[in-house]
């Protein structure tokens, strides 16, 4: 198997999959090369992540990366989510094959987009 047991586990048992209707922030990213698409929905409490859910279209690693990301960033401050790196997601999956690195990049990009949206919509923000 070219994928780690952690990746396989997240693919087989995705954590926090599905839509969140009352999210405080949502964002997506896609990888044009192969049409992979990941979307996160965030629920914030006191500036920190209370709950994350994902939706993903793509190969096994893409689904697993989105799933692992929702656990990885639990409780983090929104500002920290803004700078989430793909490498951190890849590490949480115990590695990705060279030709599947984009799975972590799409997940990281989507998480940053969702965090930015949450920040914009934060009560008190003039733009909101």
């Amino acid at each position, binding site marked *: 198997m070219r994928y780690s047991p952690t990746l396989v586990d997240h*693919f087989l048992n995705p954590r926090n999959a599905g839509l969140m209707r009352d999210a405080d922030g949502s964002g997506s990213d896609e990888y044009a*090369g*192969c049409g992979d*698409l*990941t979307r996160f929905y965030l629920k914030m409490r006191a500036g920190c992540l209370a709950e994350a859910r994902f*939706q993903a279209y793509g190969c*096994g690693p893409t689904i697993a990366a989105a799933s692992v990301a929702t656990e990885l960033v639990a409780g983090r401050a929104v500002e920290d989510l803004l700078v989430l790196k793909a490498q951190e997601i890849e590490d949480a999956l115990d590695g990705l094959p060279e*030709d599947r*690195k984009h799975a972590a990049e799409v997940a990281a990009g989507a998480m940053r987009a969702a965090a930015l949206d949450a920040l914009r919509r934060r009560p008190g923000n003039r733009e909101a």
Partner: protein
Amino acid sequence: MNRRVYLDHNASTPVHPEVVAEMLPYFSDVYGNPSSVHGFGRDARAAVDAARDRVAAFLRVRPEELVFTSGGTESDNFGVKGLALARGSGHVITSRVEHHAVLRSAQALEAQGFTVTYLPVDQYGMVDPDDVRRALRPDTIAISIMHANSEVGTIQPVRAIGALARDAGVPFHVDAVQTFGKVEVDVHAMNIDALSFSSHKIYGPKGIAGLYIRRGTKMVSIQHGGEHERRRRAGTENVPGIVGLGKAVEIRARDMKAEAERVSALRDRMWEGIRARVPDVRLNGHPTERLPGTANVCYRNVESESIVLGLDLKGIAVSAGSACTAGSVEPSHVLVAMGVPLDWAMGAVRSSLGRSTTTEDVDFVVASVTEVVSRIRQAMPVGAA
């Protein structure tokens, strides 16, 4: 041990135990070079001749019209380039759904100044013989159309195309790698001048295949060296492989018909099962003119590779209809040519059944596909494609 189900027989098959038994002496006992004049060589030559006779009888052709090659790919290269290069220059007709062994051979000919027409196919992946007729030109020097498509299983109207080719006096090459030993191939009724066939798709060993070349057909070699195969294909014969191919063919002559019926019923059971349980699916390929064991199914808005992975983790081997290599996905050229929309084409999964496939296997696959696809779809973004 966990259940393992192999549904990738169009990619390759397990060598039949009777074939293995027949081959074994030719590794360590009868190991001479068939070109050698001594007894060791003569024994090897006799085995090659006997196998050639078996294949010739099966195809109802003369033994000397058969050339053994290293695989379907070489046979296709030989068939396409051999016919074209023998005529120096001109126009070649083929289709958009050929195996890459034919498509890339045609492209190589284009690079050498030949012109090539790549015929379209209909929604079922079928070439219209009228398109062949319209594509014919005074300088057309070869036609190459496959018998059955390996991805979707559609069987081309080669009989009608062969008749056109014969009327026009243009040699006709057919890639029969997926039909040889599975469904009837009649080079006479189909007016075929060159026919690619292979061993490892019909429970024979890998690394051996052949090209039938109708007597009198002008053809040049593409591999040069010694005088082997009546100077048409240089290289010491793969004796164990040829023996294995001969035996595999003999078994196919015996089992082909009954197996086609059995496998076809299992294929139908699988598709009916999937269709009844999984929403948003479609079966690709021609409804009736198709290989018995092939089912190419598209799962809309699901990515093929994730299904293949999900099934692999359950011990089921199928193949993805789209390939994601180095981060860019190419949907199958066959499905694209058939006009299958991208949101469907990206979710194509091919199952190809074979002699070991059982009803229990098929039911297990249906249950597994249902579970895997619904799990993946739960995580799917609305409106993603």
